[in-house]
């Protein structure tokens, strides 16, 4: 089983988002970067699959050298080796093209991504990689089991779940369910030591995108909260009905 796990380096979920350079850039000052939470579910499942089926887990990240601490964390969790495609990630198309170009002749049985990155929320990279490579994709993937040359998967549809079967290779876009929260792998001391000497190959990026993030803004600040007494829920209902007009 040869597995490729796509790892995106994103701001920690507690980050208060601010922008710099006239709102044209995300302000990274003081921000802690982590493995994209959805990718963490995928990486943890990859480790489980490797343990039961044998094989190899490689991670790939499109990013500059500042993403290497996050890549090392993935190695510490247990990936065997890592690839960094050296480029500034600009949009989904560029990232997907880089990853597909890298993966196309390496014989991966399974490519795992997250369902979306929590920074740019494209949700587009997995489907694009699959389309470029001409293989199936399942997003979001909340369960994957491998049996020989095929996979049984579960995805969310509006109003329920769908069970699917697909030949390998395929792209599975992880979220909670692929493993449970309690099964997420955390690096231990031995893993951290081992990660230092695991191979991290850097290759030059060359792909182009076609969407440009011109500027950012924050949601408009809320007006002060109107407080209602706990003894007077009728007043709340009245406000919701006549003032807010939502019920």
């Amino acid at each position, binding site marked *: 089983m040869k597995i490729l796990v796509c790892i995106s380096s994103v*701001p920690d*979920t*507690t980050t*208060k*988002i601010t*922008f710099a350079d006239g709102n044209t850039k995300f302000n990274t000052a003081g921000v802690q970067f982590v493995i994209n939470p*959805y990718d963490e579910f995928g990486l943890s499942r990859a480790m489980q699959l490797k343990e039961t089926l044998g094989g190899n887990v490689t991670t790939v990240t499109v990013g500059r050298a500042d993403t290497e601490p996050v890549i090392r964390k993935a190695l510490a969790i247990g990936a065997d080796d890592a690839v960094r495609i050296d480029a500034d990630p600009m949009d*989904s*198309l560029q990232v*997907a093209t880089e990853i597909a170009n890298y993966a196309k002749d390496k014989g991966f049985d399974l490519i795992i991504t997250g369902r979306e990155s*929590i*920074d740019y*929320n*494209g*949700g*587009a990279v997995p*489907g*694009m990689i*699959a*389309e470029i490579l001409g293989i199936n*994709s*399942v*997003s979001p993937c909340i369960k994957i089991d491998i049996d020989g040359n095929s996979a*049984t998967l579960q995805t*969310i*549809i*509006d*109003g*329920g*779940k*769908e*069970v*699917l*079967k*697909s030949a390998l290779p395929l792209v599975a876009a992880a979220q*909670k369910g692929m493993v449970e*929260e309690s099964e997420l792998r955390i690096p231990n001391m031995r893993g951290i030591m081992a990660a230092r000497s695991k191979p991290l190959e850097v290759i030059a990026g060359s792909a182009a995108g*076609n*969407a*440009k*993030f*011109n*500027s*950012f*803004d*924050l*949601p408009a600040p*809320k*007006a002060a*909260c109107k*407080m*209602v*007494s*706990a003894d007077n829920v009728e007043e*709340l*209902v009245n406000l*919701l009905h006549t003032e*807010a007009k*939502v*019920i």
Partner: protein
Amino acid sequence: MSVLVFAENWDGAFKKSTYEGVAYAAGLAQSVGGNVTAVVIGAVSAETAATLGKYGAAKVLQFDGNDVNHQATATILAQTATAAGSKYVVFNGTWKSKSTAPRLAIKLNAAIATEVVELPSTNSPCVVKKKTFSGKAFAHVELNAEVKIIVLSPNAYGIKENELSAAFEKTSGTGSDKDASLQHVEYQKTSGKINLTEAELVVSAGRGMKGPENWGMIEQLAEALGAATACSKPVADIGWRPHHEHVGQTGIAVAPNLYIAIGISGAIQHLAGISSSKKIVVINTDPEAPFFKAADYGIVGDALQIVPKLTEAIKKLKG
């Protein structure tokens, strides 16, 4: 030129999200010129198809088959867009659409923006506003390709009527069957509850409810309102509630007209997923709970006492 919109159906019926996609496409057509062609894959009656006209579709193209397979759907959409010379393809924000649109982008060499909340602010170049940082911020994205694909963030644009009478045209196209390798095994439907992402009213509760045995009153409140139920992450993690109710940065993002947060502290990860709600009510024992800063209306007090009273008051209002 026509603006193409993928009009998703469920067993022959449309949902609110389908109409939202059509309404957005109609708004777009008004600003870039041309009219709206809706593409339906699967058996939909002429009567149902015609309802798309109410939201601005001038034409409905119906293909045989079904739209559960993303690859086949993307193939049909690519062929239709190319034949019609469409420069814009619009998708609603459901999982099916979010899986199909990136494939179409590759097929058409198109530029794509997902989680879009408004019509483009300018058309040349095409710049759209989208959610980023899981709802904590917005980005203005320039789409630099001849064909632009816009995938909506659910409930952001809203449903706007734009009466046209859609002409129904039945076409017999088929997708490629290269994707026969992806087989449908079965559906496991969640029982007849209101779909959280589409819901206009959401009643959500957190660890402040103390235990799963207290959720009866949450469900009764939701039922009185006709609302969907949701919860905070720890509540789903400890199994008080099912995972599909988990709202927030790492769960579902919602954008209802009213979000009632009961016994939820208002952690930044939770707020990210609900910040697009139009009105927010917070019920919490702690007057310092961060959630009050994001709320429109608040009550400080014990949820176990307040929620049943609130349900009664709502029932009284509804008569």
